[in-house]
């Protein structure tokens, strides 16, 4: 495949054109619009598969990348250089990400044709699919972007689409608030993101990733001359951009929007909270990882990740809404990814992003499959409350099976993908904690969160699918699940990819470090995704639009360093030991979580009510999401923002409007009076009327002279002649 912008851009343009066409078509021919949407994303996934094949099965080195740019606009002149390049940047990470996004999105689109079919003709006349197409295309654009500015553009596009999709059932109470909340909360992070972009732009004159890496290697970011507000440029820009991640990926201070986003239809939850939007934040923080690293922000990132992972997991313990559990588990898992970024396990964080996208998409689609079947015949609404479920495995076997695969994956049971990725993050956290005291708390939070994850996911499964049906009438009305291509097939395909073997190349995923050598081809993920080495980007010269593919195959062997940059054999042994300990600990923790859930909800030997009554204060805190919503709404917004708004409104209305705008009226009035007087007296009376008066005066004189008496004229002639003569 020839790698130019015009060939690669199709991967973004297929869904985008589907969006444009469907925007006009959806109302008239909804079915065709749905087919176009699904077809476009399927085509994109074919494109992505080609790129994936080229990159992963080609013999390219791990640090190989393709970048094609064109000048978007160019405002050079008068000594100023201001040109904006746009382009594509593909490396192994992009290739994997593209395949993940397109395939998961395709499966979600297919599932949506089942889920949204009864919902007012495919989701309000196919409008749902219109937004889904735009959403997917924005995500693909973001993944392909070669610079922070176009990342930001697609980032905002996704923000808009998530707004539209979350508010899809706008007639429901809360959906309107939820989408505004999601939009505004992420906006807080986006403002900082834009600030970071500007900081980078002013200092290195470009926002491309490649230029940014080169500048890091040159020490521009750590140069004290470039300090912003007294802190180094790297810390300022890194923290600002990471704030974007905090907003978009629902990290600790700004996580409040994600649970409310569950008001959207379930397939869109699957798309937003698994494969695309929240993944974009983590993807961005991986892209700026060298920046975070050089700024020394990684402990902070690890802390935020750890707090999010643990805090969200605890809230998930007490949720009774089916989707709310999944929402909090999403926040928690995103916390793990950020923790992975923070402890420097670049590869594992990215792997967790991919594995999480797959199993979480499957979980959400399964939840959709369950919710769609549970129809309350009294209120005519779908049932999401777990206390009314139970025993559903007899009615829907395929969903039950797929969901168990994903639950085991997210819980971190061996042989499943979640174990492979999460365990590596935790192992690296453990190593960092042993070397640096700062990382101890995030590591402990990570392990504790792993226990809770296993527990609450199994609790959800037990409450939903096992035991006796608690709402008999509801249970009776559930139709028996029959295999259908658009309901069960996507679930089962995704369930297959929850196996760890796809990612680790070995069943356990915990092969000894030495096996993961360049010869260990099966460890493709670890081998092909490595931290970018910023020194390699120093000699970069940009390749312009339309140049042909100048890659040379097999030029370098993989740069994967199985020794983690350590030369001391003893230290390598130590790292290996810690990894093994971490793996054993996480296996134990996962099984402990499953066991506790089993004892509580299947055997019922342990009473969950005892915990609720003993720790009632904590229980209430968890049910109120640690009062963070209250803090934001009552504290920050009502006490801080609204008074500020009122103050600004007062400045606007009370000062500016009253004194400057209305005061201007007084000034105008004075001028008006003066100019009216001038106009009336001088212009009108003296000049205009004066002209008339003078004309009338001359008229009188001339009329008297021109009497028509010819002899009078003679007299005049004589008088004039006499006058002449006298004058001479």
């Amino acid at each position: 495949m020839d790698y130019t912008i015009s060939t690669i851009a199709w991967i973004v343009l297929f869904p985008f054109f589907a969006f444009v066409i469907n925007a006009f078509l959806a109302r008239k021919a909804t079915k065709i619009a749905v087919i176009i949407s699904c077809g476009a994303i399927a085509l994109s996934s074919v494109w992505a598969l080609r790129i994936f094949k080229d990159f992963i099965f080609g013999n390219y080195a791990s640090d190989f990348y393709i970048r094609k740019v064109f000048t978007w606009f160019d405002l050079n002149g008068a000594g100023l250089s201001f040109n904006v390049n746009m382009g594509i940047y593909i490396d192994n990470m992009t290739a994997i990400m593209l395949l993940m996004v397109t395939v998961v999105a395709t499966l979600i689109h297919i599932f949506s044709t089942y889920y949204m079919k009864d919902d007012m003709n495919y989701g309000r006349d196919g409008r749902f699919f219109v937004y889904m197409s735009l959403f997917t295309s924005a995500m693909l654009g973001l993944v392909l972007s070669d610079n922070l500015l176009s990342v930001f553009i697609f980032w905002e596009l996704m923000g808009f689409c998530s707004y539209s999709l979350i508010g899809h059932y706008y007639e429901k109470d809360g959906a309107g608030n939820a989408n505004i909340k999601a939009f505004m909360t992420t906006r807080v992070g986006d403002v900082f993101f834009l600030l970071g972009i500007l900081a980078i732009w002013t200092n290195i004159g470009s926002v491309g990733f490649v230029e940014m890496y080169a500048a890091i290697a040159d020490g521009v970011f750590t140069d004290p001359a470039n300090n912003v507000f007294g802190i180094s440029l790297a810390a300022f820009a890194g923290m600002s951009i990471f704030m974007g991640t905090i907003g978009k990926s629902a990290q600790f201070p700004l996580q409040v929007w994600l649970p409310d986003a569950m008001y959207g239809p379930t397939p869109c939850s699957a798309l937003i909270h698994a494969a695309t939007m929240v993944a974009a934040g983590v993807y961005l923080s991986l892209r700026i990882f060298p920046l975070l690293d050089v700024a020394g922000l990684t402990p902070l990132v690890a802390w935020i990740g750890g707090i999010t992972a643990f805090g969200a997991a605890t809230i998930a313990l007490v949720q009774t809404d089916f989707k709310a559990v999944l929402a909090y588990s999403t926040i928690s898992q995103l916390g793990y990814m950020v923790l992975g970024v923070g402890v420097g396990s670049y590869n594992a964080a990215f792997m967790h992003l991919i594995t999480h996208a797959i199993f979480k998409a499957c979980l959400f689609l399964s939840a959709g499959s369950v919710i769609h079947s549970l129809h309350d015949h009294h209120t005519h609404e779908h049932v999401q409350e777990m206390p009314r479920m139970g025993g559903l495995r007899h009615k829907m076997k395929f969903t039950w099976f797929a969901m168990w695969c994903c639950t085991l994956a997210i819980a971190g049971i061996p042989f499943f993908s979640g174990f492979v990725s999460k365990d590596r993050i935790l192992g690296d956290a453990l190593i960092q904690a042993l070397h640096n005291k700062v990382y101890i708390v995030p590591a402990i939070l990570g392990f504790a969160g792993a226990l809770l994850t296993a527990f609450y996911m199994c609790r959800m499964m037990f409450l939903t699918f096992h035991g006796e049906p608690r709402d008999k009438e509801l249970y009776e009305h559930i139709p028996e699940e029959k295999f259908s291509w658009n309901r069960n097939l996507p679930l089962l395909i995704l369930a297959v990819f929850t196996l760890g073997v796809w990612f680790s190349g070995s069943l356990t995923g915990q092969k000894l470090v030495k096996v993961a050598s360049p010869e260990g081809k099966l460890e493709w993920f670890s081998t092909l995704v490595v931290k970018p080495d910023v020194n390699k980007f120093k000699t970069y010269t940009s390749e312009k639009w339309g140049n042909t593919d100048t890659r040379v195959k097999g030029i370098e062997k993989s740069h994967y360093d199985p020794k983690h940059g350590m030369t001391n054999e003893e230290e390598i042994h130590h790292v290996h030991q810690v990894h093994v300990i971490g793996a054993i600990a996480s296996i134990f923790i996962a099984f402990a979580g499953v066991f506790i859930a089993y004892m509580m909800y299947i055997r019922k030997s342990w009473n969950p009510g005892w915990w609720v009554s003993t720790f009632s204060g904590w229980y209430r805190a968890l049910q109120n999401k640690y009062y963070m919503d209250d803090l934001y709404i009552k504290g920050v917004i009502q006490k801080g923002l609204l008074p500020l708004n009122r103050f600004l409104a007062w400045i606007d209305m009370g000062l500016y409007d009253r004194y400057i705008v209305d005061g201007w009226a007084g000034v105008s009035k004075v001028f008006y009076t003066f100019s009216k007087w001038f106009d009336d007296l001088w212009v009108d009376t003296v000049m205009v009327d004066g002209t008339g008066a003078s004309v009338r005066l001359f008229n009188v004189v001339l009329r008297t002279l021109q009497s028509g008496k010819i002899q009078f004229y003679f007299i005049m002639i004589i008088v004039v002649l006499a006058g002449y003569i006298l004058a001479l």
Partner: protein
Amino acid sequence: MVSLPSFLFVSFILFLAGIVVMIARKNVIAILLGIELILNAAALNFVAYTRFINNNLEGHIIALFIIVIAAAEAAVGLAIVIRFYQIRESIHIDDATQLQS
């Protein structure tokens, strides 16, 4: 010997008489006569100046021209007077009001 000032004096008297007639009389024919008087005063001046200063015949020729023009002018003027009389049945100058807007 009659000198030049005597001629000029006569001419002046004639001219003055012509002007007075032209302004004072209301009869159109009298006004025409006044004009004749003024023309004759002018012709007398020409003849007197050419006799006493140039001593040639140029002034006489111009005097002859003036007599011819005066005859032609008198013919046209009398024709207008006749036409005017036919319309107004009067030759009083103040009755000629048609050109007054």
